[in-house]
């Protein structure tokens, strides 16, 4: 029963953190970030149902997010003009239903195959819908999008939704419920078979399951939750535009899920948090934000194929054996020079891009025309790279020592 208690504790903790966040950070700014994160979490988790759990690489997942958002915002408009009476709390459900319907339609022909064929169909559908959204301005509002006001519904528990904080508490409800359902889905026959089909669709056929149906169910579920996220977006920003369903948004959710870690349920949550924070903390301090994001993404694909969650989980074995502490010093020895290298390199990039003669960055004042600041940065980068390279073998040894099998050992693998 210990595991059951832990499980309740984990979910209870998740809910508590969600509810307590605005108590700790109560600035308008913080609430606005939390709302953004909440939307990103649901969206990224829904994407993981496709790629992480079901093995379907989609380049058009924003279609369901965007369509959900558009329907939701149209309902808001109907409420505003009193053509319809509806609860604000259920707006994300409108988004979800739209995502589900769109998922059923597209899924009916796109889930026949996984792999490249699926990826290409999703790309084609994504481009088609994005282009149509600019052509059919009646529904999509052209490049200006559609706007609706969330304050015309009946008040809910005394919340009139004038402030983003009200939206946050509503979002918490939906994020929690969506996370819970998406987690539980992975424990159902359909969810488990999605993993099986991802691993080996042929074998799944020979134990009685149609790979296509299994994919179709995951696809519809993913569309539904993407639509819920879209509905939340509509509520929070009161604006939905063609950008919400185009390739850029689809790419961003892929980035989130991948950087967070595809194979783990918690991965996309981590990815959504990291990317939202990065976007917020960095985008206004540097014009090179997207360049850094690109570098981070490519490096993640190259060196952390299982994302940040995978990186954390890599330490599970050492942790279980109580050897994690042995890694602390080597990590520090490699990490600090690496940090020096990264910071120097970033400063170099910023300096070469600077339009002002003096660049204020990371607390440093660097003169663009002074050889000294260039030399200092190059030296810093060189030193950092050198020390990192020097300490890597030590880290590797420490890693192997921490993960060395115990005396009993694993069985030999014959092949």
């Amino acid at each position, binding site marked *: 029963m210990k595991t059951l208690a832990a499980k309740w504790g984990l979910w209870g903790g998740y809910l508590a953190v969600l509810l307590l966040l605005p108590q700790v950070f109560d600035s308008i700014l913080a609430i606005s970030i939390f709302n953004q994160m909440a939307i990103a979490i649901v969206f990224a988790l829904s994407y993981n149902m496709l790629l992480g759990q079901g093995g379907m690489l989609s380049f058009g997942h924003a279609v369901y997010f965007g369509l959900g958002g558009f329907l939701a915002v149209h309902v808001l408009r109907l409420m505003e003009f009193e053509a319809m009476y509806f609860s604000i709390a259920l707006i994300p459900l409108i988004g979800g239903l739209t995502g589900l319907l769109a998922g059923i339609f597209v899924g009916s022909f796109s889930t026949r195959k996984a792999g490249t064929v699926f990826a290409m169909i999703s790309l084609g559908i994504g481009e088609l819908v994005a282009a149509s959204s600019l052509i059919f301005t009646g529904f999509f509002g052209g490049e200006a999008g559609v706007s609706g006001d969330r304050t015309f519904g009946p008040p809910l528990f005394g919340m009139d939704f004038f402030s983003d904080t009200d939206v946050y508490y509503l979002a918490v409800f939906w994020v929690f419920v969506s996370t819970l359902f998406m987690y539980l889905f992975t424990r159902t026959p359909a969810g*488990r078979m999605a993993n099986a089909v991802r*691993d080996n669709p042929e074998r799944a056929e020979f134990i*009685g399951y149609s790979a296509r149906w299994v994919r179709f169910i995951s696809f519809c579920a993913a569309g539904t939750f993407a639509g819920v996220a879209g509905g939340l977006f509509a509520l929070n920003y009161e604006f939905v535009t063609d950008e919400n369903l185009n390739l850029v948004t689809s790419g961003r959710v892929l980035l989130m899920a991948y950087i967070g870690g595809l194979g783990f349920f918690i991965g996309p949550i981590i990815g959504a948090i990291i990317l939202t924070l990065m976007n917020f903390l960095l985008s206004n301090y540097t014009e090179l934000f997207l360049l850094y994001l690109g570098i981070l993404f490519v490096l993640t694909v190259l060196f952390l194929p299982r994302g940040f969650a995978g990186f954390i989980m890599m330490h599970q074995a050492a942790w279980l054996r109580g050897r994690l502490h042995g890694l602390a010093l080597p990590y520090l020895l490699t990490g600090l020079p690496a940090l020096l290298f990264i910071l120097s390199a970033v400063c170099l990039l910023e300096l070469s891009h600077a339009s002002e003669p003096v660049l204020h960055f990371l607390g440093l004042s660097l003169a663009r025309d002074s050889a000294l600041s260039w030399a200092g940065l190059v030296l810093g980068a060189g030193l950092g790279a050198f020390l990192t390279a020097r300490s890597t073998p030590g880290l590797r040894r420490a890693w192997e020592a921490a993960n060395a099998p115990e005396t009993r050992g694993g069985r030999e693998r014959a092949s």
Partner: protein
Amino acid sequence: MSILSLRGLRKNFGATEIIRGVDLGIETGEKHAIIGPNGAGKSTLFHLISGKYAPSAGAIEFKGKSLANLPPHHINRLGIARSFQVTNIFPRLSVFENIRCALLWPSGYHYSFWRLLDREAGLNRETEQVLEKIGLAGRAKIPAGEIAYSEQRALELGMAIAGGAELILLDEPVAGMSHSEADHAVDLIRRVTEGKTLIMVEHDMNIVFELADRISVLVYGEVIASGAPAEIRANTQVQEAYLGEALSDA
């Protein structure tokens, strides 16, 4: 009455005909082995029965029902399960999950997304029983891709028998095993297929003669002989075509 009957079965890929008119009837409860030289079409025959390939001509009937043009999952649901020559499992799922997945459809769970697997005590007990049977109870939590090869073969077998199918097709169940492992596997096969109909493709003659009560010899897509082990051993045609060299090799 035959549980499975093949009549005039043919399969060609482009101009090459691999199965050239096979007629075969398998009796309920029989342990049937198909032997033959490499490239005789043994695996293709399995693929035709299990629905991976569609026949070019001829009929396949299972308990009187035609299997023509049915997709693999339909055929499986009728009660035909199979294993593969090359290990074919779900590598990232645990050993336990692999078996449980194989049990899902036959236990009536189908595509349900409202029932939680962890709560289904009966299903989990059944999974554990299968794991006990195939001797993998101790490896239940390990990802299937990471266990030893012979264990994967046992898992492959476990997935084939898990659903309680009436007809089981085993494609070279002991390929790549050492002698002791193979002996163990034969025991296992005998135990787990008790009371069921079994068709197997196998190269190792000792195992064939140990397990099978009837043998068919497939050469270049045709069945040249079919009968009890003793008959086959005595059949001169078989000896010429195949058995002689195989036996002398062994």
